[in-house]
């Protein structure tokens, strides 16, 4: 079942209570999550205020920027008795730079409403252009531009991306127990919040 509550704020608090400990276990409790709110909407962004590129992390290949964004909305349940949390968009991105106009190198996106004229999968992974140039691989006798591919994914949990940062990008976890904390959090998500991955 999705996150529900008697009031909109209860839904948002449940989500925060779920998110806070896993981010702290992976990346440390020195980070802030900025919660921009307007009634039935809340947008969460990891990082100091006014840092559009997110937080600076250090991995095995040097420093980089990690951005985590969630656009959340609460709607009335079908019986009109409770409120239900919906994810309108998420975006997890890894960048070499914190420049506001520089494309992220890797990103996982979900948009509830695909823009008109677009037909790609709502949940997808994309490789960015580097210094304005496409990252390409040879494919038959052609060139495949990885930036043009919206590689489909399931619903990507924050826990999955945190795991990626630790195991693939070489970020040192704050907690020795990070793996069990992430596993418990993933399990809780599927048992208590959603039985679906997409």
């Amino acid at each position, binding site marked *: 079942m999705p996150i529900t509550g008697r009031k909109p704020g209860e839904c948002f608090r449940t989500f925060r209570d779920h*998110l806070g400990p896993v981010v702290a276990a992976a990346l440390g409790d020195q980070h802030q999550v900025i919660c921009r709110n307007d009634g039935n909407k809340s947008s969460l962004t990891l990082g100091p205020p006014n840092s*559009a590129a997110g937080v600076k992390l250090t991995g095995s290949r040097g420093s980089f920027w990690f951005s985590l964004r969630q656009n959340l909305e609460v709607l009335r349940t079908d019986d009109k008795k409770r409120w239900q949390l*919906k994810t309108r968009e998420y975006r997890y991105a890894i960048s070499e730079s914190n420049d506001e106009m520089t494309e992220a190198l890797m990103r996982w996106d979900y948009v509830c409403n695909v823009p008109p004229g677009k037909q790609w999968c709502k949940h997808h992974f994309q490789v960015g252009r580097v210094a304005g140039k496409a990252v390409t691989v040879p494919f038959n006798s052609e060139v495949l531009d990885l930036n043009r591919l919206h590689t489909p994914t399931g619903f990507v949990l924050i826990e999955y991306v945190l795991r990626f940062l630790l195991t693939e990008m070489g970020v040192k976890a704050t907690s020795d127990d990070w793996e069990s904390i992430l596993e418990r959090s993933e399990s809780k998500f599927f048992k208590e919040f959603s039985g679906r991955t997409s």
Partner: protein
Amino acid sequence: MSHPASVQFVDDTRTSGEWLQAAEALAQRLVHADARTAYARVRAGEYEGTPFAAELSQLMFLAGEDQPLPHAAE
């Protein structure tokens, strides 16, 4: 090693009109356009993958300027 309890959550609550003003300021500062024009470009794929596009989309969501959620959406 200690187990950090949680990150800090910092609330910033504004009206939809105030979020639109923030979007206007962002769009003017970075692309010299009004927020709705810049957002239309973002939706068309311009500035793809940039923090600017993500930030503007977030502000327009809060301002109620994005598309409404379909009734039967996931």
